[in-house]
Structure formats: structure tokens, C-alpha cells
């Protein structure tokens, strides 16, 4: 009986185990080996050269600026995105007439692929072909077409705008589910005790929403640290290398410099950093739960 149950269990787990092995573990091992080898894109494996690829990573003049920029972008996006998502979720949480319509509208951009959305915004922002850049001019607010991607600050903010537009609805959905899990009785009890709206929000909504907030935070931080598509399409790291993210560097190593070894080493470094960060986030959130 016991043995057959074990076999049955293994059987159930086998497809997933196989999937994880083939599509995650083996590639991971290959990347590990690549990162220790001299591996040009066109010529293939030329043998071990450890730890040259790893020292090359930090030797690149773009590396530290890219790390700084990625962290700045992550902080900015996380704050703006989750703040707005929470606001939207609070707006549409009650089942009022029209709430369904607004929920759908807010969520709609999330149904688009990030690359497609980036391309759409690239077209809108374009100073030569886009409609947005000439709008202020036509309204008499500016003398020349506005350059949305022309300066480091405007390029960053324009990209953040795109990402917020694209993902706010998605995080709203996660938070909405969390909000609706909070029992009505708790709110009623608070009202009986004469708690103000602000007090209710601070002492009831936020603490009880913590699991959803934690999940959103984790997804948002991880996703932002791995930002690539939006910058690849909108800015290509420009202007003047001001918006180069870490993942763009991996792409550049592999497909511009055609050096898979260094690209793999950089990937391993990013993976390590992400693991560390996620572990810290989990610990922090667990601590907060226990306190």
C-alpha cells in the first residue's frame, strides 16, 4: 500500500520534475559551464578560462552605471506602480454600478505584451512620426516638438509611465483580491468603535492586505530588476547610455560583443543577486508578520 502510494506520488510529480529538469536545471548548468568558458557566439566552446568572464563583467565601464540605474528604476517603478495600483483597487473594490467597467478598463493594458506596448509607446513618443510630441506645440505650449526620450530624465520617466500604464491594472487585480478577502465584520466592528476612514485604512486594510502587498512587492521588484523589453524598444539604453539596465548588458555581451561566456557570467551574477534579494524580502516580510 505504502509503496504503491509512493510510486503514485512520484508518477504525479514526474511531469513537473521532467519539465523543471529539461527547461530549468539543464540550461542553468549549461549557463554555469558557459560562464567558466571562452565561448564566442560564432565559434562555440573554446575551453575553460575561469575566472576571466567574471572579472570582465565588472571591468566593463557600463556595469556599475547599469547596476545603479536598474536599482533607481526599480525603486521608482515599485513606489509609483504599487501606490497607484492600491489607489485603483480601493476605487473599484465596492460592487457599485460601473465598478466592473472600470475594473476591466484598468486591467485592459495588462492584456498587451510588454514588447508590443513598448512599440506602441515608441510610436506615440517618436518626435518624427508620433502624435504626442507635437501636441504641446499645437496647443501653443511649446515652440518645438517635445522630445520624450531625448534626455536621461525624460527617457526614464517616459518609460516608467509606460510600465505603470501597462502593469497598474495587473497589480490592482492582485490587491483587489486581497481587499475582498478582508471580512466585512472587521470593518463593521471598526465603525462601531468610531474609527475614522484613515484609521480604518491604517489599522485594518493595510495590515490585513499584507500578504497581497508582499506578493506584489516581490513580483514588482523582481520584474523591474530584470527590465529589458521596454528599454530595448524605447531607448536602446540611450540617450548617451543613461538607461542601460543590467539585462541589456547581458544582451549586449551576447549579441553585440558576441561573447556568450561573459554574458553567462553576468547572468549568474544577476541570478545570485536576485536570490539574495528575494531571500531578504521573504525574511523581512516574515519578521513583519511575526511582530
Amino acid at each position, binding site marked *: 500500500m505504502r509503496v504503491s502510494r509512493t510510486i503514485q506520488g512520484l508518477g504525479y510529480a514526474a511531469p513537473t520534475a521532467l519539465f523543471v529538469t529539461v527547461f530549468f536545471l539543464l540550461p542553468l548548468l549549461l549557463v554555469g559551464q558557459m560562464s567558466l568558458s571562452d565561448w564566442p557566439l560564432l565559434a562555440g566552446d573554446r575551453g575553460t578560462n575561469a575566472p576571466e568572464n567574471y572579472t570582465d563583467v565588472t571591468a566593463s565601464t557600463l556595469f556599475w552605471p547599469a547596476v545603479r540605474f536598474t536599482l533607481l528604476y526599480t525603486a521608482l517603478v515599485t513606489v509609483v506602480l504599487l501606490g497607484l495600483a492600491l489607489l485603483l483597487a480601493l476605487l473599484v473594490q465596492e460592487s457599485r454600478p460601473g465598478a466592473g467597467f472600470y475594473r476591466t478598463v484598468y486591467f485592459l493594458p495588462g492584456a498587451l505584451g510588454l514588447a508590443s506596448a513598448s512599440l506602441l509607446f515608441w510610436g506615440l513618443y517618436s518626435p518624427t512620426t508620433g502624435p504626442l510630441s507635437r501636441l504641446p506645440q499645437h496647443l501653443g505650449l511649446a515652440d518645438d516638438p517635445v522630445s520624450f526620450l531625448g534626455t536621461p530624465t525624460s527617457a526614464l520617466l517616459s518609460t516608467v509611465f509606460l510600465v505603470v500604464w501597462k502593469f497598474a491594472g495587473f497589480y490592482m487585480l492582485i490587491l483587489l483580491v486581497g481587499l475582498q478577502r478582508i471580512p466585512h465584520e472587521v470593518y463593521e466592528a471598526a465603525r462601531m468603535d468610531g474609527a475614522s476612514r484613515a484609521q480604518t485604512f491604517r489599522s485594518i486594510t493595510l495590515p490585513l492586505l499584507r500578504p497581497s502587498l508582499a506578493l506584489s512587492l516581490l513580483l514588482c521588484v523582481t520584474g523591474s530588476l530584470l527590465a529589458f523589453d521596454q528599454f530595448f524598444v524605447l531607448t536602446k539604453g540611450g540617450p548617451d547610455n543613461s538607461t542601460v539596465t543590467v539585462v541589456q548588458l547581458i544582451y549586449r555581451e551576447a549579441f553585440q560583443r*558576441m561573447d556568450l561566456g561573459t554574458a553567462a557570467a553576468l547572468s549568474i551574477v544577476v541570478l545570485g543577486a536576485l536570490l539574495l534579494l528575494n531571500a531578504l524580502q521573504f525574511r523581512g516580510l516574515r519578521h513583519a508578520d511575526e511582530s
Partner: protein
Amino acid sequence: MGSTTRSRGPMNRLVTGALALLAAASLVTACGSGDDSGPRGSGSADAKGLDDGSKLTMWTRAATRPQSEALVEAYNAGHKNKIELTVVPTDDYQAKVGAAAGSRDLPDLFASDVVFVPNYTSSGLFADLTGRIDALPFAGKLAQSHIKAGTYDGKKYVVPHTLDLSVLFYNKDLYRKAGLDPEKPPTTLAEWDAQARAVDALGSGVDGTFFGGNCGGCGVFTWWPSIWAAGQEVLNEDGTAADLDSATARKVYDTYRGWVRDDIVAPGAKDETGTTWTGVFPKGKVGIMPMPSTTLGLMPKGLDLGVAPIPGPDGGKSTFVGGDAIGISATSDKADQAWNFLAWSLGEEAQVDVVAAHKDVVARTDLAANKYSSADPRQVTVNQLVADGRTPYALKFGQTFNDPNGPWLTLMRDAVFGDGGSLEKDNKAVTASLAD
């Protein structure tokens, strides 16, 4: 993409080799045995290759799609061999070729932006075509800058496929309005400067000139001819060191910087990453700017435009002979059939009735004047430029000059949108990348 005969173990290859031996003794060179992955297929006896009804695969990048499609269509219509053309997005092409090379999955024929050819020849992706090319009766008349770019260690690996030259386009209507002679395009950078400013003075949405200011490839393509025209080099012979802060180069940057400073340039130049830079001139609001010759056939009918060579600071003329070169992949077992296409594509019929008929630049200098170009003198201007033009050679070309995060774009932008004070330092960074 995994069509026809890609997966080959040694056994499979042995069989192929044996069959080929039986079929024709002249095929021996095209079908090596064992695990020899080096370039093969040189010195075949038949200069025209084989047309035996084989199915061939071919890749090209989207940028030169119309030219490739026209050639392949015409070839398929008149031959037993059939080519299946796959067009790959331009930005993904390098990555795709790289991945396919790793898994030995390259098509029989693949074209490449000519500046990336040295990457492929040095990595052994192309088959040696030295004997075949030299046996062509018009070998010496082929665009030599492409042949040179495809020569590695004394062996020739590619032939020109589509030629794309940088030339000045100028709007004759705007020239007339500005009181300029529409038949007198500039012959020096100073004249170009004066004419651009004269057109810009028309105002009401008209601008003097335009360029891709956030696009390294555009800078290479349109700025370097002005430097070459003065007899000044930009790279050393091996492509391992840059000389981009020469006095001549500085004069060129200064002119462009003047245009930016005085707002002679159409809006968007500073942000232009190369995606839309050729779309500005056809709108008819720009006086004069360098453009790719492949866009000549795509210009609006009503636009009265003239074509002129890109001049240097004190005269002279040059052009960047870009476009695609094409070779046979080293792993192809149909080198003779593939060569049949290449040899045909360079013949008079294909060059005149397909290439010239589409207003494109012919790959042979002896066909510069033909029945189509004589109807459009602008085409003769372009065709004749091939002999004055250059294709720069550097193994690290892409990562140095095309990479949007590479050192050349930094130099360009510092020189034209900045004050040009960091040229020496920027040039050193370019050299460091070339010698990487």
C-alpha cells in the same frame, strides 16, 4: 526553419558523400568526409555551378528584403533549383546567424550586412569561394569593396548581393524656392552647408538637413564619406585602431555641430535611432541630406529630387559601399547548386533586368551604364560612385560602431551635440573597442 537536410551525423554525411561521388566526380570538393568542418567547395571546375532541381535555403535581413526577393523570384522562375528565402528582422539577424552557427543549422546561402562579414569569415561560417569567384569572366569588375570585406587570410568568401551607397538627396523644388540652382548640388562641405542654410531660411516647417543623431550606423554611413573624400583614413588597415579625431574629421563634425547649433536640422535628429531616419526626406520638407541609395526607387513620384556624391570639406567625393554580401555556408552540402544562384545573380541578365530595373545599384562596374540607368541619370551617378566608395573593415565593427551603447555613438554625440572637447578621449575608446 528546420527544413531539408540540416541534421547530419558523420554516417549521414558519408552517405551524402558517396552519392555525390557517384553522381559527378567534380563534386568531390563540395562534400567533405568525417568531421571536417572547415571551409569547403573551393575551386570547382564548373564556374556556373549546378542546376539540378535542388532545393536551397537562403536567409537575408529585412533591410534588403525587396532586393533579395526580386533576385530569388527571378532565379526560381528560370531554374530547376528552387530557393526558399527566409527574411529575418534586421536587428535579430546577427543573433539568429550566431545561434544557427552554434547548432550547425545555417542555410545553404546567407547574406549579411557587409560590415559584419569579417565576423563570419573569421569564424569559418562561409565556404571558400576563391576559385569560383576568380573564374568569373567579370571577376575584376565586381564591387571590389565588398570582395575585400569578404577576403580573409587571402581567401575570398563572399560576393556582393545588394549594394547600398550613401549619397546626397536634395529637394529641387525647395532649391528653386530658395533661389538655388537645382542643377548645382554641392561639391564641397562648405557649399553643402551654405545650401542647407539657404533652404532652411525658407522657414514655415522647412529645414535645411537631417541626420540620425542617435544612430551609430547612420553616422558611419553618412559622415565617413566626407572624411574619406578628403583622402583621410578613419581606420587602420586591420581595423584595429581608429583615427576619428583627425583634422579632417573635426571639420566634418564642426559642420554638423553648426547645423545643430543654428537649428538647421529637422526636429528629432538628436533622438533618431535609425528606425525612421530615411522617412524624413520623402516628406518634402528637408533641403539636402545623405540617404541610402536603395531608397531612390521608393521615393514619392511627385518629389523632384536630385542625387549627388557626398563631398569632403574641400571637395572630392566618396561613399560608403554598404548593403549585403552573400556567401555559401561552410556546412552546406549543396555548394555547387548554391553557386549556380550566385553566379547567375552577378550575370548581366540579373544585374540589368532585375537589379537595375528596380533602380538599385548594380554590383559590377562594367554595367554602371545600362538601358535602365540611361533613362535616369541619377542612377548613373550612383552606379559610378561604387568605384570611389569604401567598405570599412574591422572584426569588431558591430560592437564598436553599430552598438547603441558602443563607443562610436558616444563620440558622435559628444562631437555634434556637445562641444567636441572629448574627441581625443572618445577616439581612444573606439580604438580600445576595435582592439578588444
